[in-house]
């Protein structure tokens, strides 16, 4: 049995389980807060990057580039207007283009967005040579209009199975209880379900874009009849035609398309040409995401600053706790001195107590940060289908080291306080 000063300090804190437990918890929680904030922002970035990996350059109509990315890749926000079909055809025919994947958006089934695309969607890859990003796990790909392939989450949440039919409705959101604009005459049939990708695509329902065209051709015809029958409704009809966004008129175009050029030079040429044209904009998801990350980073920095503040408060709390316990332990120090411990011995025991508290607090805090992260990842996964990967946060290492040094400073400060008061008032303890 070695009664080193470390062991003595450890025994001392162990002999006050409540105070010790609380102190360690305070440190652990604030450490976890600080670490999980930076880890979560990094995790979200990684998740977003992975989600957008298979999408090369996205082309859509002029407007917000963030909106274009959000809508096409993350199935959020509302679609921009349509790209004229002949423009799409022209890009597709361009010799510098290797492949294009069209996307038509604007309808939903119970809030799960219906993405009109074609068989080339299934050829998308995160990078050349990677396995296909989207794979069927049950059934088969859509081959004809009004056949639908469900994303894993969409399938799970809606309960739709292969062979089931459903009708889509206009718009991007599901309006429970409201009278919705359903396309009742033309139902979809589920023919396949995709393997989970842990990206927002899991929430999509993928159909051939021709379905959109047919639906909206049909609708236009019906609307025309209706307009002829009731000319008073003209204003509303016109606004519907012009808006082209939420309830876009898809019979003459598509919402966006991906372009995979043959090489980097071709990519840059096409990027500039498309952006120079009056019909569309080309967006590189990486660049837009970079801007979004800056925002996330800024938010994380603010939160991180708050976390540091909380941590500073925790340090002060620990300092106070230790100082208060000195009052209680004055007798112990007195005794230690009386049986031969030097001032320095007592100083070290007090300092090492603080070191223990910080060390354990940080250790638990570090573990706790992964628990917090797991909860966050689960929540974000559920809501946005963005997979936040687990990873070892190297930044945490230096933060923890820094904290341990901070803990040492607190320890030395506390010990110095003890050092000065060790004997004077101890006498009163003895006298009483």
């Amino acid at each position, binding site marked *: *049995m070695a*009664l080193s000063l470390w062991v*003595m300090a450890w*025994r*001392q804190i*162990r*002999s006050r389980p409540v105070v010790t437990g609380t102190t360690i918890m305070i440190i652990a929680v604030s450490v976890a807060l600080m670490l999980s904030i930076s880890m979560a922002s990094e995790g979200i970035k990684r998740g977003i990057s992975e989600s957008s990996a298979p999408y090369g350059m996205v082309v859509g109509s002029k407007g917000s580039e963030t909106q274009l990315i959000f809508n096409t890749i993350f199935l959020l926000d509302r679609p921009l207007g349509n790209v004229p079909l002949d423009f799409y055809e022209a890009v597709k025919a361009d010799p510098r283009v290797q492949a294009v994947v069209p996307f038509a958006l604007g309808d939903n089934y119970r809030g799960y967005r219906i993405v009109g695309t074609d068989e080339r969607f299934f050829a998308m890859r995160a990078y050349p040579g990677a396995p296909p990003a989207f794979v069927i796990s049950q059934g088969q790909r859509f081959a004809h209009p009004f056949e639908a392939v469900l994303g894993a989450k969409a399938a799970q949440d809606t309960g739709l199975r292969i062979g089931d039919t459903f009708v889509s409705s206009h718009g991007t959101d599901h309006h429970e209880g409201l009278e919705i604009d359903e396309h009742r005459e033309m139902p979809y049939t589920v023919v396949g379900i995709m393997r989970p990708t842990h990206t927002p695509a899991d929430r999509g329902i993928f159909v051939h874009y021709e379905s959109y065209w047919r639906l909206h051709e049909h609708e236009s015809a019906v609307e025309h009849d209706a307009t002829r029958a009731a000319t008073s409704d003209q204003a509303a009809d016109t606004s519907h035609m012009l808006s082209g966004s939420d309830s876009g008129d898809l019979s003459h175009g598509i919402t966006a398309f991906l372009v995979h050029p043959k090489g980097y030079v071709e990519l840059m040429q096409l990027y500039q040409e498309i952006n120079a044209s009056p019909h569309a904009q080309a967006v590189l998801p990486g660049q837009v995401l970079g801007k979004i990350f800056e925002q996330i980073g800024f938010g994380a920095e603010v939160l991180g600053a708050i976390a540091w503040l909380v941590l500073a408060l925790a340090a002060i709390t620990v300092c106070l706790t230790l100082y208060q316990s000195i009052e209680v332990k004055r*007798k*112990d120090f*007195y*005794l*230690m*001195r*009386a*049986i*031969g*411990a*030097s*001032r*320095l*011995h007592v100083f070290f025991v007090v300092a090492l107590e603080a070191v223990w508290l910080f060390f354990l607090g940080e250790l638990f805090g570090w573990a706790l940060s992964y628990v917090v992260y797991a909860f966050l990842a689960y929540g974000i996964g559920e809501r946005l289908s963005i997979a936040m990967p687990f990873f070892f946060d190297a930044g945490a290492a230096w933060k923890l080291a820094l904290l341990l040094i901070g803990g040492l400073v607190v320890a030395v400060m506390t010990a110095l306080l003890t050092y000065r008061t060790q*004997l004077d008032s101890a*006498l009163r*303890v*003895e*006298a009483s």
Partner: protein
Amino acid sequence: MIEIVEVTHTYRIGKETIRVLEIPSLVVGPGERVAVVGPSGSGKSTLIQIIAGLTLPTTGRVVIDGVDIGVLGESQRDRFRARRMGLIFQAFNLLGGFTALENVLMAAMWSGIKNKSERLQAATALLHRVGLNDRMHVDVRRLSHGEKQRVAIARALVHQPSIVLADEPTASLDPVNKTVVLDELLALVREKGATLVFVTHDTTLLSAFTRVLTLGPGGVVSDRSPVPVG
């Protein structure tokens, strides 16, 4: 050997000062067993602390085994005390959270017994001696009052001190334990040839000592051999 020369001690509380001790001369020779009695507040504990070098007297000198402890630096005094003296108090003698054996070992370590197995041997032997063979590995907080004071005795004697200072170690014990603990202490002190200064309120214990020192408001009131109690 303890020599006290013209020692006075005053405590200062704010602007007020109270003189609690005034001893023109006192010599306690090797092997003497001195009981210190006197009313509460007469300065008994203060005297013990001054002899131990835990408190420096306001004036005067304390010489232990030829060494004037007033001229020693604080850490030297700490080391001197650790080697030469064993201290026992009325309460708070032990460090909670440590076993009886560990408490004794700690004192052995700080008193400068370098050899580990020697420390262990001395500590175990003493704990056996005071009848705590089967309680050695118990956290001292779980021991009874009597057991605690016996651990304190073992702790005070583990390093073979030449002087044992005890400040009412039996005050919180029941009459039976009181005599048992005192007898154990006296036997050990006699065996090791140590000097004992023992503060007590209990006049029934005095016959066991070679000398009784009575403190009063003005200082030493009487210094004599014990009067057998009838």
